[in-house]
């Protein structure tokens, strides 16, 4: 299928005076994982609600699986969409299995399906216990199991790894990768998550309802033109004395060279020529730094130029 699974064309949502989401245009293809990043109030949840069809756009057009998600025709598509809300506390007095069975039935699946899902997220041992006895991580797993009901074609996950321990996080990403290889599309919504990078195809950065940047990580990194951090070990003071190298040193991190991408190889060669070099760490800008970059760029363009911060930061 060449048509995108989800497309937003100049879509926006306003509440009275507040523009929760300004015009956003984006397309999500089948089998694609999109990361949606932004602070609280950036419009992430609004965008998800628009795609889910829970609210209608104030302007622009939204299509999910070829239909407007808030229309009557899109009704039967809803069982193919999974959603994990950001703050959800399931019926406390019910057991995990009862909660999931209820949600499964509403999507037209059986109790058996619910049991399988609970096994998949690893809370089979607690499924006969009331949800009120669950820990934060277990609740989150239950929420994920809920989103996975019926092998959805489209998954919208709001802060999916909050409260998950590292192993559960790894299991979660494994499931995402698996769903992706089955042709499902995923929108992962988050403040910046460590470890999310290798699981997403593209990223979107939102701030105060505005789309700041969108693209693959490589594209975003290029766009941001952030320097590479090179940390030589064992050279002691000789870097500061080397006139080719000391220009890349900054005051706040005296042992790290901040080098523009295109000069990276040049600098590395220079460093390798030093006798005392024991080890070398090369770090390209991670998602978090890219994210910070676009946000600070947006803030400085919104504010007066005098408050502008220096471009290069650790």
């Amino acid at each position, binding site marked *: 299928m060449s048509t995108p699974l989800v497309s937003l064309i100049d879509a926006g949502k306003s509440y009275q005076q507040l523009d929760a989401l300004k015009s956003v245009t984006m397309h999500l293809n089948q089998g694609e994982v999109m990361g949606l990043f932004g602070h609280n109030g950036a419009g992430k949840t609004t965008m998800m*609600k628009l795609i889910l069809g829970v609210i209608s756009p104030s302007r622009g057009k939204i299509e999910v699986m070829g239909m407007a998600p808030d229309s009557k025709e899109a009704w039967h598509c*809803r069982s193919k969409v999974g959603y994990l*809300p*950001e*703050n959800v*506390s*399931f019926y406390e007095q019910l057991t995990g299995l009862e909660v999931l069975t209820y949600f499964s039935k*509403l999507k037209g699946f059986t109790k058996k399906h619910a049991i399988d899902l609970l096994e998949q997220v690893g809370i089979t041992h607690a499924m006969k216990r009331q949800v009120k006895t669950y820990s934060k991580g277990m609740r989150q797993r239950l929420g994920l199991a809920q989103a996975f009901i019926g092998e959805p074609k489209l998954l919208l996950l709001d802060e999916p790894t909050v409260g998950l321990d590292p192993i559960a996080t790894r299991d979660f990403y494994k499931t995402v990768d698996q769903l992706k290889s089955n042709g499902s599309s995923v929108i992962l919504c988050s403040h910046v998550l460590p470890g999310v990078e290798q699981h997403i195809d593209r990223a979107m950065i939102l701030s105060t309802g505005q789309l700041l940047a969108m693209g693959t990580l490589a594209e975003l990194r290029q766009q941001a033109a952030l320097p590479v951090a090179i940390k030589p070990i064992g050279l002691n003071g000789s870097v500061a004395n080397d006139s080719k190298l000391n220009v890349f040193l900054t005051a706040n991190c005296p042992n790290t060279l901040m080098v523009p991408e295109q000069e990276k190889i040049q600098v590395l060669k220079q460093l390798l020529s030093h006798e005392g070099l024991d080890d070398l760490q090369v770090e390209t800008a991670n998602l978090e730094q890219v994210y910070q970059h676009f946000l600070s760029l947006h803030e400085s363009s919104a504010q007066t130029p005098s408050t502008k911060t220096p471009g290069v930061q650790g």
Partner: protein
Amino acid sequence: MKQILTVANKEFHDGLRNRWLISITLIFALLSIGLTYFGAAASGAVGVASLSTTVASLASLAVFLIPLIALLLSYDSFVGEQESGTLLLLLTYPLSKSQLLLGKFIGQGSIIALATLLGFGSSAVLLYFQLGDTAIITSFAVFIVSAILLGLSFTAISYLISLSVSEKSKAAGFALITWFLFALAFDLALLALLVGVEQGISQGGLTQLMMLNPADIFRLVNLSGLDSSDVNGALAVAINASLSQEQLFTALFAWVVLPLSIAIFIFKRKKL
């Protein structure tokens, strides 16, 4: 329809789990059996009182209790789920707002209806075995059906409250005020109108005013069939100009359908 039943089933089981069904049934059973046997105590005798006295005292108690119980049972149905986030989640499911509302109504309504039937039905059966009078069955049938309608009406009214506010505690406050207005204040106001304003209101007018309160319709349904010697106060006046039983039941039924329709309307326009 399947969706409605799934929701209804869940709500009904919630009612069982929270011991709502058992406690309401017990309250009603104890009350009605107690009133049946000791209702005559006021006139100095212990034993089964006359049927009309029993029904009259049951009705005047039920008119306070049933609305209170219905409001308590349902005031947080929507605002509670909104606070916990499940309402938003449910609406992303293939489940329409009216299906969700009707499902809840059927589930919680069944709890009230079943509790009323079992609670008051038990004393009807007991009384029937004691007296063997078939009139008991018919008067209790009227009483139970109207009590169920009264309960359903206040369930629908509590949905209105639950959908109109954004906090659970506010919903509780409004539910209490609603109960106070319908169960107490309305009658006092009517009485004040009757006594305070000379030539102000005719009997017909009074009865029409009473149609504005489901609790009063319930009273009229149950008291109009009785000897008026057992009934006094503002009601006695109204009963003399009474409407037919069918009309009263229709009015009570309208008090179920109307709030429910308005609740669906509000829900559909509600922002999430």
